[in-house]
């Protein structure tokens, strides 16, 4: 099954366009206010600015006064939304109906966590929004005002700016994809001064109906604009992939990128997919007696401390890269500016393609390592026989 075949599921043809009166934020909030008032859901998960500070964080919002500090698209991605959602829903039995407004990469992480049984989607409505990207966290923390201003300009023009996070510059999945991901999508692209609500599941349809909206408006304009930008960003992504594959062609290139690593595991702790309570690489499984370390040191003349940084990165890759949603949270959290996000995204791209898997695209797609087919990857196992077989088949 190729990617193209996958992407033909009940794609919505119609949506609901709403005029923007004051601001996009205001229009979006009015929808949520109505939904909260009419008890369509009990709380909304949304980013908010902590009063009296420049910091953003996620809140579960119930009291309408909190809309004053909420922001659907803050200039930075603090905690990855998938992580935030899982933090309160992983044990299930929420007892409340919750809607979550997420960036598309965050929603994809949620879908992956759903497959890993780390979120409860029973009473959850996933809502995504067309995402202009976000600014690097470190830049924002150094000069919040300036970065917030430039983000505003960038997001208004949907510019693929160099000052966005690298992960966002190279992101071609910034909008709704043709899969069973979110329930509802908020389209910002397309006509100016219009917000388009697109139901992407029966639940999403229900929600629109309950809100009294009829999905009758055409999506053509949004689609054209979106696809134009997707094309542009796919091109950017391909050149990024090419550049980094070249950079890491031999092992040295890869090592050089990681040799600043101080083993703080911030990348792992910021990663939405790394959900383990006790990471294998924090465990005592890889401890040895001093004489073993001395022996290792003698083999090469020196032994680097902290130990096992390379094992950690490659090992972590083997654990999660098939589900990597390329959100860049790891790179934002790195204190020594290692391009972790780019490395993982590059490796993820290649590995995911091998399994014909797009993380977070469809809720039904099983995780690649949970299934197998008897007749797959013959080219890896016995390349010669495989070729013979292929030629026979052709005959």
């Amino acid at each position, binding site marked *: 099954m190729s990617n193209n075949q996958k992407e033909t599921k009940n794609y919505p043809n119609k949506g609901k366009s709403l005029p923007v009166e004051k601001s996009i934020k205001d229009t979006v909030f009015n929808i949520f206010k109505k939904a909260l008032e009419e008890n369509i859901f009990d709380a909304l998960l949304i980013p908010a600015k902590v009063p009296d500070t420049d910091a953003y964080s996620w809140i579960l919002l119930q009291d309408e006064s909190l809309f004053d500090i909420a922001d659907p698209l803050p200039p930075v991605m603090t905690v990855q939304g998938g992580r935030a959602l899982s933090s309160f829903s992983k*044990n299930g039995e929420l007892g409340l109906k919750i809607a979550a407004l997420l960036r598309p990469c965050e929603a994809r992480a949620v879908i992956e966590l759903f497959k890993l049984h780390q979120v409860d989607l029973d009473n959850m409505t996933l809502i995504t929004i067309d995402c202009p990207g976000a600014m690097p966290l470190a830049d924002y923390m150094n000069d919040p005002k300036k970065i917030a201003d430039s983000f505003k300009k960038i997001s208004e023009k949907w510019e693929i700016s160099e000052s966005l996070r690298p992960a966002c510059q190279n992101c071609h999945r910034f909008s709704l994809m043709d899969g069973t991901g979110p329930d509802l999508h908020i389209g910002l692209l397309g006509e100016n001064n219009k917000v388009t609500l697109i139901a992407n599941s029966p639940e999403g349809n229900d929600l629109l109906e309950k809100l009294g909206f009829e999905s009758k408006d055409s999506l053509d304009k949004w689609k054209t604009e979106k696809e134009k930008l997707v094309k542009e960003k796919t091109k950017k992504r391909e050149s990024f992939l090419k550049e980094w594959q070249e950079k890491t062609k031999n092992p040295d290139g890869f090592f050089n990128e990681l040799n600043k690593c101080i083993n703080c595991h911030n990348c792992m702790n910021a990663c939405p997919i790394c959900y383990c309570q006790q990471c294998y690489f924090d465990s005592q499984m890889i401890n040895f007696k001093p004489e073993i370390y001395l022996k290792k040191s003698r083999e090469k003349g020196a032994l680097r401390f902290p130990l096992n940084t390379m094992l950690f990165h490659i090992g972590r890759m083997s654990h999660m890269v098939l589900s990597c949603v390329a959100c860049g949270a790891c790179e934002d*959290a790195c204190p020594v500016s290692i391009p972790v996000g780019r490395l993982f995204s590059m490796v993820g791209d290649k590995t995911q393609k091998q399994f014909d898997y797009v993380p977070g695209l469809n809720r039904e797609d099983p995780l690649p390592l949970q299934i197998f087919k008897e007749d797959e990857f013959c080219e890896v196992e016995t390349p010669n026989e495989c070729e013979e077989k292929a030629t026979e088949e052709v005959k």
Partner: protein
Amino acid sequence: MAKAIKIKKNVEEGLFDFLKSLLEKEKINGVFTLKKMDDNGAISYSLITSPDEFKDAVPLYPFMPVNAGKALSSFTLLGKTEEPIAAVLRPCELRAFVELVKRAQGDLENFLIISPTCGGVLSLNLMGDKNQEKIVSQYWTSVQKAEISPDTRETCQFCENFLPINADITVAALGNKDLDKEFILFLNSPKGEEFAKHAEGSAVSEEIETKEINEFRKKREELREKFFKETGKEGEGLKSLINIFAPCLGCHGCSHVCPICYCVLCDFDAKTHEYHSASLSLDLKNKGGLKVPTGNLLFHLGRMTHMAVSCVNCGMCSDVCPVNIPVATVFSKVGSSLQKVFNYFPGKDIEEPAPQGTYKEEEFKTIGEQ
């Protein structure tokens, strides 16, 4: 008069030669020190066993990529090293290692500990900076003049414990105007004296506490007061704490690099501190909203109860914080008041138990009787 020798060489070069000769003469089997990884400016601790590999060693390079106490603990966690190893640590790293040894997380035996009088280390975000060499040379100028370098960590700028305790050999660097020509090694233990015989130096009689050192300490004390005053305003405790920790991502990087936080599984990463979805409706009813993930403040306050009394002020936590929270300053402030209350100096005496693990019957007599 302390035992000391003078070496007529640039301090970096002199220490390098001394360590290299120890390694070549097989007096020691390895040197644990900083090493250049690459041309991109990356510096990392290494256990160097071959004299050939020693060419990239930079023992006094002003970076602390990890707290060496933590690194040595991972080296000796399962037992002492049977072979003699020289280790170059900064005073706070040494104190951290002593604290870890106290907690059975390492072993000091067979180490020759060498530690400099410390002018601080540069912030980690300068590692790989295009001006790295320039910043480092400026750093050395400030060490020569015994001035506080503005590029150093905030915690370093107000650290008063910059003279090593428990080191076998102290490298006197701070306030030495002729640092590029000569420097002094203070020999604090018989072990230090024994090894120093292999250094090309002449015996001198000097005191470590010079006028420059005392003035330097005074400058740092002033800064300390200033930083402490600015962090956590009095009277509005909760609000100010919330504002300080508002950007916290909950990545727990601070605890991960902390040399005192040695637990394999931190309590705050464990199931115990997971949020129970059952309490969600109650919390929302009470507050109308809830920050998620919750528990940031509990994590920081809780971590304080676990380790602040042993905080050695190394500043690793602030340096790894991706959102620039002055973690080290807050912890240092709390730590120093706790250390005063319990009359405890972390990393000073290996025999002295950590305050949480002991008690005295006759202390705090009035508490609980009101």
